[in-house]
């Protein structure tokens, strides 16, 4: 299949943003054109095919009107208005190329160029510079202005003039690892400042000074880009028309000559990017403006942190060993696959059919995941397949399935533009889902209200121009109590949407639920002591949500990763139904998925009890579909979930595992238990880019490929199926789906896929919600949201519009049950975990990029009071201990966390926050309780014994024998 070549026009800069409005017809240079009301004259001209010269305008930003290059003449109006700031009017007659405006433009350009270095040929933006283009477009041929001969300083770009240092000259700032700021090339068009405000919402940049002295400045005068608030999203770099803000990769590699549209492989937002290349050398990743999830925006991870793809740590040859004490031996693919296949078959012969299993990856494509679960079901002959979604969003599947009838978010991201009140619960979007956060913040700046429910004061609670109306800083583990208390207020104060409930939900069940929620024990006053949330604040939040207009709930792992994760998801669904906030734009229940393809890996039947499309393996009619397609018999019994696999391994009945693109040893809770389970297995096959932590216990290592090296699809948190396109050949020789196929065939499967599109065809043929999906449709539409089938040929942006998937919405009683993980004298603090912007999950990728400048170690956030009583000061080494284990890391004193609560991230293997977490899990799904662990903190003077043992085991286990000649 060929690369998608972007038609030139499709990517053209229209100058100002699109508008929606009644049609208005005007005449531009003699041509009639009809555009929506509110459109600028500049954009109308662009629609008609005329490109009016411009510098300070670009279509991702509101017009600013400062450069005056875009002037036009309008019949009946005086002067020469700027076309970017002038809205169209019916019957308007515009001239874009009169003698008068041409002269003005030339004059403007002459002034700009007189203060600009003329080193175009060696400039990194040569050929990709709007200043150059405009000099050409306006026909600028000579510059009359000159520096006064008597030595007065007159420009910004010469370091020295007439032998003296030029006080106007500011040297290049290359503190950011990915881009430079070269003030000598700045034309002060303000696009970067506006991009940082309007698109990203960080407000890191300002224009300091006035007139000739004005300068773009990151943070205060003492700051550079790195020390400022800049989060390195790249929006300013994207907006800059010159080489002032420029990717370092372009400076180094030159301007790219081709581009391929693909999808970010980091988080569940699923941003579309243009991978820009020279040949097969990736020069930069640029957010794609027609990407429906990101609308032209990106974060530091997708935009810049792709260097891991070529990192020297990547393993490119298959390796095997008989036991994990031995060093690795590099072997041919054939030998490695033969070794793996015969070991796995041997285990089945010796220990039974169900003694082996697979773990699918939420980082791999849908097609790859489908094949891995097919390997378990069709080739191993059991249902022992699970995915890392087990440890993050499995309660979403269960909870939303029970209440609404489908396990997915109800909205698209565009929906947030229509929201009036947002609840963000247990999620930290500015760090975990940055592009969604930017879109949310934009809506908040335009007036929507925000309620944050989180133990920690996340960045959303208060940031420039954003302030949550309510922050309910609950005690970790009390989500259900808080959510039910919100329902209590809504029900007892009569704020529910009765008409919605009567038509859309089961009324009987509602009445039972209403009676339950009204009970005095659920009132905010009664639960205040338990949850730590002031009753008045909670009441106010409930009223705001119920009466503030369109209400939307966004949640993350702070909801699911609890003993009562599934119950909280149900409680959230109850709240949405109670307030009638389902089935239209601006409302809904939206799980923010962690990894890029968590949604997809769940859809693709990765769970041990479900075939693709969330259909239980016990159903004979569903098994029949796959039995017919695959010509095998499917086991009607549910298989083992990841924690069950590890338990069974320790018990001796589970012996072999094929683990694709996951690092369970680092990412799963209770590391010691995971290590014991892995150590008890006789054949662990790790299929990954790097020798990850799990590989320390592996017998076979199959090198993986990056998202740049394969075709496929990812499904993001909005159920959007986005294409991933191969931009370069796999360095390891095979795309991951090919490796799985080779392994399956080595075990006798006889698969014959030659392209992932054939796998998608098989998915569509077997899975009703994907029935209409194929690569041709994706090529045509760019992306589509499932369900996509005969009933919804173009996909489904909003779910449950006319009725719930299950028919009537179901209210479920959500009684709070305290977790067994309780604080006590030995472990008096509650640890909760999370992540930060620059790092991703276990960090295997991001730790291998320039992103480490922002986060080179995990820190423990602790409230100053708790620190003081323990004698802990900022930056001290501390020991963090729970009943599971202990580790050491440095302390960060902050009042972001409440007294009694501590917080850390889990991006670095030597910290191993999961040595601390316990094996408690969600009652329904076994999703581990990462978010609540009772701990103690004390001063320490170095790594714990566990950390040292671990490090030496890891080092021993990573030895590779030199290849035999």
């Amino acid at each position, binding site marked *: 299949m060929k690369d998608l070549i972007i038609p030139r026009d499709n990517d053209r800069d229209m100058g100002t943003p699109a508008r929606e409005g009644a049609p208005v017809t005007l005449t531009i240079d003699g041509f009639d054109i009809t555009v929506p009301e509110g459109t600028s004259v500049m954009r109308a001209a662009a629609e008609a095919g005329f490109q009016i010269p411009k510098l300070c305008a670009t279509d991702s930003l509101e017009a600013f009107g400062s450069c005056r290059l875009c002037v036009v003449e309008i019949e009946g109006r005086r002067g020469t208005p700027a076309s970017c700031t002038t809205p169209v009017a019916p019957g308007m007659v515009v001239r874009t190329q009169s003698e008068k405006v041409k002269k003005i433009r030339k004059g403007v350009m002459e002034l700009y160029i007189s203060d600009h270095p003329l080193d175009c040929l060696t400039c990194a933006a040569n050929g990709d510079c709007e200043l150059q283009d405009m000099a050409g477009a306006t026909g600028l041929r000579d510059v009359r202005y000159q520096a006064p001969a008597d030595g007065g300083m007159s420009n910004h770009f010469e370091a020295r003039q007439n032998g003296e240092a030029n006080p106007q000259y500011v040297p290049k700032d290359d503190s950011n690892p990915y881009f430079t700021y070269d003030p000598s090339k700045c034309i002060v068009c303000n696009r970067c400042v506006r991009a940082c405000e309007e698109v990203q919402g960080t407000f890191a940049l300002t224009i300091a000074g006035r007139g000739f002295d004005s300068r773009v400045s990151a943070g205060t005068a003492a700051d550079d880009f790195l020390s400022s608030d800049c989060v390195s999203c790249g929006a300013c770099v994207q907006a800059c028309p010159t080489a002032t803000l420029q990717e370092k990769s372009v400076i180094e590699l030159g301007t790219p000559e081709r581009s391929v549209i693909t999808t970010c492989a980091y988080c569940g937002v699923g941003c579309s990017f243009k991978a820009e290349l020279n040949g097969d050398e990736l020069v930069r990743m640029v957010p794609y403006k027609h990407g429906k999830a990101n609308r032209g925006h990106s974060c530091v991870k997708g935009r810049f942190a792709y260097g891991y793809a070529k990192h020297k740590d990547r393993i490119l040859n298959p390796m095997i060993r008989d036991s994990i004490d031995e060093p690795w031996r590099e072997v041919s693919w054939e030998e490695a696959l033969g070794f793996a296949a015969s070991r796995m078959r041997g285990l089945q012969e010796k220990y039974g059919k169900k003694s082996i299993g697979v773990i699918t990856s939420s980082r791999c494509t849908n097609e790859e995941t489908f094949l891995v679960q097919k390997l378990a079901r069709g080739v191993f002959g059991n249902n022992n397949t699970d995915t890392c979604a087990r440890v993050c969003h499995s309660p979403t599947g269960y909870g939303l399935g029970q209440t609404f009838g489908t396990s997915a978010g109800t909205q698209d991201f565009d929906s947030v533009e229509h929201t009036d009140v947002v609840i963000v619960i247990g999620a930290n979007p500015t760090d975990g889902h940055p592009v969604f956060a930017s879109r949310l913040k934009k809506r908040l700046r335009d007036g929507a209200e925000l309620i944050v429910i989180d133990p920690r004061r996340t960045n959303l609670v208060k940031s420039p121009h954003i302030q949550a109306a309510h922050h309910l800083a609950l005690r970790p583990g009390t989500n259900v109590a808080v959510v039910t208390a919100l329902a209590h207020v809504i029900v007892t104060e009569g704020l529910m949407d009765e008409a919605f409930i009567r038509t859309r939900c089961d009324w009987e069940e509602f009445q039972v639920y209403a009676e339950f929620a009204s009970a005095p024990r659920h009132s905010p006053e009664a639960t205040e002591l338990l949850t730590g949330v002031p009753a008045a604040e909670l009441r106010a939040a409930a009223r705001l949500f119920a009466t503030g207009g369109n209400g939307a709930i966004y949640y993350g792992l702070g909801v699911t990763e609890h003993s009562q994760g599934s*119950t909280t998801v149900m409680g959230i669904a109850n709240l949405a139904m109670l307030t009638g906030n389902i089935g239209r734009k601006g409302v809904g229940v939206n799980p923010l998925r962690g990894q890029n393809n968590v949604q997809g890996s769940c859809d693709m039947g990765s769970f041990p009890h479900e075939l693709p499309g969330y259909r239980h393996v*016990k159903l004979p009619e569903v098994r029949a579909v796959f039995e017919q397609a695959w010509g095998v018999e499917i086991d009607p019994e549910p298989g083992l979930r990841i924690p069950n696999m590890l338990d069974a391994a320790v018990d001796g009945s589970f012996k072999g595992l094929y683990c694709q693109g996951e690092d369970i040893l680092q990412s799963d809770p209770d590391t010691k238990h995971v290590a014991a389970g892995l150590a008890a297995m006789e054949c662990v096959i790790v299929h990954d880019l790097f020798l990850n932590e799990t590989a320390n216990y592996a017998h076979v290592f199959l090198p993986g490929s990056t998202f740049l090296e394969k075709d496929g699809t990812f499904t993001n948190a909005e159920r959007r199926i986005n294409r991933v396109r191969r931009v370069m050949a796999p360095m390891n020789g095979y795309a991951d789906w090919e490796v799985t196929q080779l392994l399956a065939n080595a075990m006798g499967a006889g698969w014959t896929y030659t392209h992932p599109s054939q796998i998608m065809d098989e998915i569509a043929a077997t899975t009703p919600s994907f029935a209409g999906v194929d690569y041709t449709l994706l090529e045509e539409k760019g992306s589509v949201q499932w369900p996509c089938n005969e009933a919804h040929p173009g996909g489904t942006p909003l779910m449950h519009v006319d009725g719930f998937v299950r028919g009537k919405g179901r209210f479920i009683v959500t009684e709070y049950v305290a977790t067994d993980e309780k604080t006590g004298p030995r472990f008096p603090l509650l640890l909760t975990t999370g992540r930060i912007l620059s790092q991703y999950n276990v960090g295997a990728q991001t730790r291998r990029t320039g992103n480490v400048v922002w986060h080179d170690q995990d820190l423990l956030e602790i409230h100053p009071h708790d620190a003081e009583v323990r004698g802990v000061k900022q930056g001290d080494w501390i020991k963090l201990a729970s009943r599971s284990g202990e580790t050491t890391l440095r302390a960060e004193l902050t009042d972001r966390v409440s007294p009694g609560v501590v917080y850390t991230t889990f991006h670095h293997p030597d910290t191993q926050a999961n040595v601390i977490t316990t094996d408690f899990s969600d009652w329904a799904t076994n999703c581990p309780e990462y978010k609540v662990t009772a701990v103690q903190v004390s001063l320490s003077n170095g790594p714990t014994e566990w950390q040292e043992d671990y490090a030496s085991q890891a080092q021993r286990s990573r030895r590779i024998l030199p290849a035999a000649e």
Partner: protein
Amino acid sequence: MSPEKMVMMANQIATFFKTQPGSGQAENVAAHINDFWEPRMRSQLIGYAATGATGLDPLVQSALSSVRAPAEV
């Protein structure tokens, strides 16, 4: 799996269904276990119950008759 862990997991399921209105809680507990517990986990549960059922929530105990005994493990 350690018996304590299995007991805890079974009891957690019972704790949820106990709070649900109406009748049939035991059947719901059993149905949940049948749907999500792999045969060897169900065998372990059934075997454990036969040898005393220490610590098992009464609701789990009354659900046991509806927990499907696996054909083979």
